[in-house]
Each structure stands twice: as structure tokens, then as C-alpha cells.
């Protein structure tokens, strides 16, 4: 989607002519395992949107907008939503109050911030791709995709 914005380094899906997403959801699985030690659709930081009919699937991940509207909208910025020195916006979930404003502020459809509104208030948190901050190998989803259809651009 061309929004006329500029983006920082982010995880992107390669075209099928390079590698077809096998639809295994490994990226989602690895993401929540690496971050939280569980597998959970509520805790993944990127999403595979499955097409029932074509069986060709789309991986949606945060594009790391350089003007980071999600960060700007966070009422707890600096505590919940933070910026790296490189400008990567990430969420420190220990400070997140689960208000969902960052999710609403995301310019993409579907929003690239995972926010499960129906989750109990005490555990409701927003989650977004942090490029596996501090992980020497880089984003785990890219590393572990069995068909290497994810890359950092």
C-alpha cells in the first residue's frame, strides 16, 4: 500500500515469484515464542491473513513509519511506547495500559499493531513488531521462515 509515507527497516513479504508463502504461520508462531515463550494469536507481532479461496496468504507486519503516529498517540509514551535511537517504535508491555490508541492510530488496514479488544482488561496489551530488538540474528520470523519469503527491507 502506497501511503506516501517513509518507512524504516521492516519485515516484508517477498513476491511469490521469489518465494510463495507456504501458509504455515511459522512466522506468527516464532514471533510469540521468542517474545513471550508461548504461541498465541494475541501475542504475535505480525499476522498472516489467510485467503480461504486462493490459499495464497499475506503477511502483515509493522512498516515502522518514520513519523510513527502510533508512538505519537500513546498516552504513556516513553513508558509504554518507546523509540530506539534509530527511530524504531516499540512497545514496552510492562508500561502498556491497553488503551488501544496506538492501534487506532496505525495508518494501515489492517492495523499492524496487534490489539485484542476482547481480552480481559488486566491482560490487554498492544503488541507490535520491534524487529526483535537486541536479537543478534535480527527478526526471528525472517530467520525461521521455512521458505524464506520474509525479508528485511
Amino acid at each position, binding site marked *: 500500500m502506497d501511503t506516501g509515507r517513509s518507512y524504516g527497516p521492516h519485515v516484508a513479504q517477498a513476491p511469490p515469484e521469489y518465494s510463495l508463502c507456504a501458509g504455515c504461520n511459522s512466522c506468527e508462531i516464532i514471533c510469540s515464542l521468542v517474545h513471550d515463550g508461548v504461541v498465541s494469536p494475541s501475542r504475535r507481532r505480525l499476522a498472516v491473513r489467510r485467503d480461504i479461496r486462493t*490459499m495464497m496468504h499475506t503477511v502483515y507486519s509493522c512498516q515502522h513509519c518514520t513519523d510513527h503516529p502510533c508512538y505519537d498517540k500513546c498516552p504513556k509514551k516513553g513508558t509504554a511506547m518507546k523509540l530506539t535511537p534509530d527511530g524504531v517504535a516499540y512497545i514496552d508491555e510492562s508500561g502498556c495500559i491497553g488503551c488501544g490508541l496506538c492501534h487506532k492510530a496505525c495508518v494501515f488496514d489492517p492495523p499492524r499493531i496487534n490489539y485484542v479488544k476482547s481480552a480481559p482488561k488486566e491482560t490487554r496489551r498492544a503488541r507490535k513488531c520491534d524487529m526483535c530488538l537486541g536479537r543478534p540474528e535480527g527478526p526471528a520470523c525472517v530467520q525461521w521462515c521455512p521458505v524464506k519469503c520474509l525479508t528485511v527491507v
Partner: protein
Amino acid sequence: MYGYAGKIARINLTDRTVTQIPTSKYVPENIGGRGVCNRIFWDEMRPGIGALEPGNMLIYMTGATTGTGIPTGGRSVFTGISPNSFPEQYAWSGIGGMVGAELKFAGWDGFIIEGRADSRVYIYIEDDRIEFLDASPLWGLLVHPCQRKLEELHGDGVQSMVIGPAGENLMRNASITTSNDNVAAKSGFGAVFGSKNLKAITIRGTGDVRPYDIEKIFDLRLKMGSPYMRPSPLHREATHGMDGNEIPVEGGWLRGQVACSHGCNQHCNRLMIDMKSAFGDERINQVEKCVGIFAYGFQEDCSWTPIQNYETERNHFLPCKMLSREEPEPDTGDPHFSELFTPVRGDVTNYWKPDFDKGSVMMDMCNEYGIDKWDVIVWYMTWLSMAKKEGLLDDLDFGMEVDVESEAFVRHFLDMITYRRGKYGSIFAEGMARAIRKLGKEKYGDTIYRGRYSQMTGERIDVPVSLETAWGHSYHWQGRGFEATINKPGWIATSLELMNSSRDVQTVAHHHEKFENYLEYKDDPCHSPLLVEGVAFDENKAEIKDSVTCCDWQSPDLYWPDMEAEMFTAATGIPMTAAQLSEAAERSRLLFRAILIRDFGRCRDMEVGAIFPTMQYPDPFGQTVGWDEWNDLVDIYYKRRGYDIKTGVPTRPTLEKYGLGDVASALGCAAN
């Protein structure tokens, strides 16, 4: 609990109630999946219930690995009384997709469907909430439109299992379908859904599955099945089909490779892109697995290469590598290389010439109507072809000239049986085994087809027009019919596996054996305890696959016997060895057999009587098996399993050894 979600839902459609059962009631003793299903069915069911009656119980279970990211753990299993088995018996049906993981995210390891709704319903599960919703907007929809409608109703990201018109109309080989065209088909449980007025089950889960050992999961992801871990681009193929069925496709066709289930590290299923649809001008994508290839052309049976069954340490690879064309380079230095890799051409069958568009239409109709492709491709259509050539159909009015090479006829026939149109629509909707008996088995089933020739001997192979084997299923890796080209020691083993089952078993107990063992018994397979041990091994592994859960195309790895135990422990944290899993598999098989004995009259005479006639037609090498040698083999097998040799009933000591003293008492086993 690590790995498990912790509870099973008992869903009663009659009074629309839901109750919970703690999963810990059944695990770890019964592992999960089919092992738990067998225990529940034994505990709760009684004889005298028909497959399509409200009293039939459909049990669905995931495994401890489901939703954990352990490769192949996304598979799950249904069990219940199968309307497609002949006679009706307790059976199972595996299914891939995302639905098992989604159920666990919702907090459930499985569910038991009981009763019958008084109006058409579908079940919606969102975490702890389970609702019975009006299925009027869904009833009559084809499979994919139904899945899409459920997404419209409940939002993106829900996972559904649905039936098509075949299930609604109680076609005995109707499937249950979920994402990526994954089906539970062989047992006809789609008809059980239909009989319960149940169109679909849709699930949204937002919770967590917590595996025990994440580092081990990463280790397994790298080790299991030697994952590709490199780009898998779309390929334009110039031809389609294999062996004598290969045809050029004008402009080529586009092939992708996709995974069948949540978290798998393989992509063994072919995605055929931009194919002809049976339902309009829009081009469609569809998934092709093994049998589907023959929808397009069936002039020649599948060839066989011994490495598909017999393996050495230097040469063994997983079946999932075949459809993705990623077989490793063979080790030509293996002293058995030549024996393992010399292909044996399949019989010339002359069923139908290749037709790319017609094949696509046949596949699409099976997908959208929700019919078992095996029955359509290997049985209905081959029968129509053979019976027509033998002049058997002159007196049957199907409303159209029978011609399996005509797309119009294929459409007409599948439409007729799915919607039970006319006299013959209703007859064939009962499945081939029942239809042939209704028409008259001697003429319509047993007449010899005179158009099949062995490419090994050059001789005509006299097999009947109806490719029926035991339990109302069609031949599969059994020396006759489809995938017939396997040598006698091979089909002796697969036939023994089938005898002990209640349905085609080669989809989950695909026969694997060490080549060194094969060399020991190849000249006298019916008197070999070693062959029997191999059969017991494959049967137990099948039980393990459907319980842990994992996949028939990655398990077993004969040279990594602990694989499934490592998967289980990584998921649950419960120490497990291959020997302990094997013990659990023995227990599960004993429960399965006890159910067949108690509820369906299984005994030695019944099962030998079901299997023996199927091996009296010549295999491609002209071989059959004699009564005495087969019974000698059954003796060895029963002794190995701890069954009474005369009756086939497990002995009390056998049952007690596996903690099943209650089962021994229920079966009336004498105290020793």
C-alpha cells in the same frame, strides 16, 4: 499444563448444552489425539448405534504438540462410527489445517459432539464461549462459499470446519473440510455432521499455548524433515501427471508448494494456480496431494520404487519431499542402491486419457461438494470406466451416456450422487460398497475387467471392475487397484495392517521397513515374525502419529526412533521415551480393538474373511496368497499382539499388562 489446553468440551446438540471435562482425566496415559478418543469412545459408547443416528458420538482431539510450533503438530483427528466403513464400524479420520491450533488457543484440547440438533445449526466457539447458531444462511452452500460466509459473519481470522452438500445429503463418503483444502474424508464423517444437522464449527481463540521447551522446539524445527529453509518460488510446469499419464499443458500451469497444517516446516502440498472451476468462469486455485494427480489422467497406475517402503541408513527420505520435488540426492555408494531405486512401472489400466481441465473440474467438485476424493477418483470413476467397457451399464439409466472422459458426464454423475438425484443418485450416495451390493455384487462388482495389463509380465491382470478391498474401502498399496505396484512382501504387510483396521490405513500407517529386514523375509513373508514386528511397529507409529500429533509424511523416521517422544516432551515437559510411547500406542490399539469386538462383532473369522478374498486377484507379478500361509501369518501376528489365536480377542494378561483390566472384564476375557 504445558502443551495441552487443559479441557475438552462435551457439546450436546440435542439439548444444546456444553460441559467441560478436564483433559488430565485422559492424559498423559493416553497421550492425546486418537489415544484419548479411543478411551472416551470405549468408556461412553455401547453397541447397537448406527453411524447416522443421534447416538453416534463424534470425537475431535488435538495433540500435545498442536499449536506449539512443533512441525506437523497441527494435525488432529476425528473418531466415531464411520458411515463409510462397510459394515459401519468405529474408525478415525485425520485432518490438518489451522483449526486444531485455533481450538487450543480458545482453551480446548478437543470436543465431543453428541445428539442431534432439532434444526440446522453451526457451532461457534470463541474462547470459553460455545454457542449454537442458526445455520439457515449456510445450509446448501458449497465448501468455500461456506467458509467465506463464516468469515463474513465472524470476522477474519476465524477457523472453520464445514461440510458441503454431500454431507448435508448424508452421502456416506462426505468429508469435513478446513483451510487449505484439508479434509477428514475417509470415514465419511461429513455425513455424521449432516445427520446431526450440523453444518460447521467455527473457532476463534485468543489465548496461549505454552510449550515446555522452546529451545528444543527450535531444534526440532531445524531437524525434522530437513526443512527447505530457502525460497520456494512459483514454478510454471510444462506438463502435468506422472508415468504414463503425463500430458503437456498448453501454456503450462503454475505450481506452488504449501503447508497443510499450523506450524509445519514443510510445504508438501501442491497449490495448483489458476485452474478451471466447475462452478463458473472464475479461475481457482486448488491443492493437490497424492491421489488427486490421477483425476487428470489414469491410463497407467502409479509406479513403485522400493525406497518408498524399504530404507537403509544411507538412503531414506520422507514422503513429504516427493510432491515438493525435494528428494535428496540418493547415495549411490549404498550397496543396495540399485535395488532401492529401480522403479517398477505400474499396470496399464486404460481408465481415462489425460484431460487437464476435466481433472480440475473433478477435483473442484470434490472440494466444493465435500466428497472423499479417494472414492471418486479410485473407485466411482474407475468402476464407471471398467463397467462400461465390460458392457455392464447398458441397463442402467444414469440420465446421460456414461463416459468418464467427458467433463459433462463427470459433472452430471457427481451432481447426481451428491444431491441424490434419481434412483441411482441415491444408490451411489451410499458409497460404492453398498451401491454395488444393491445393484448385485456378482455382476456389478466381481466381473473381471479385461483391460488391465502388467508392465512387469506383459500379462493381462484380471481384477474386478469394482476395486473394493476390506471394510468398504478401495485398494491402496495392496498389490491391486490403485498404487498396486508393490511386491508381495509389501502387500502382505499392508494387507495385514488393513485386516486389523476398520478403514484404509495406508494414509497414516504408510508401510516403512528397514531394507535389511525385508531381505530376511522376502522369500517367505507369511512365516516371518520379523515382518509381523515391522507391521506392529508401523501400526503403533500410526497410533502415535495421531496421538502426539504428527504427520504420516514425516513419521516414522526409522533412523530417528525417538523423534515423536522428543516432540511430546518438548511440548509437555513430561519425560517420554520411544518405548513408553510405543506402550501407549499398544494401549490405544487394544482399546480400538476392544471397541470393534464389543460394538461391531470383530473376530478372527470376520477379519480374515474380509481381507483374504481381496488378495485372490493377481498382483502385477501374478502373485496371490494362499489360505494356509495367510492364516499362518495371522497366527504369528495374534501371538505378537497377545490375542487369542482362535478368536482374535486380546487375552486378559495382555489387557492387564497395559492397565486395561476393566476392558478384559467387559469383554469377558477369562482369568488366566
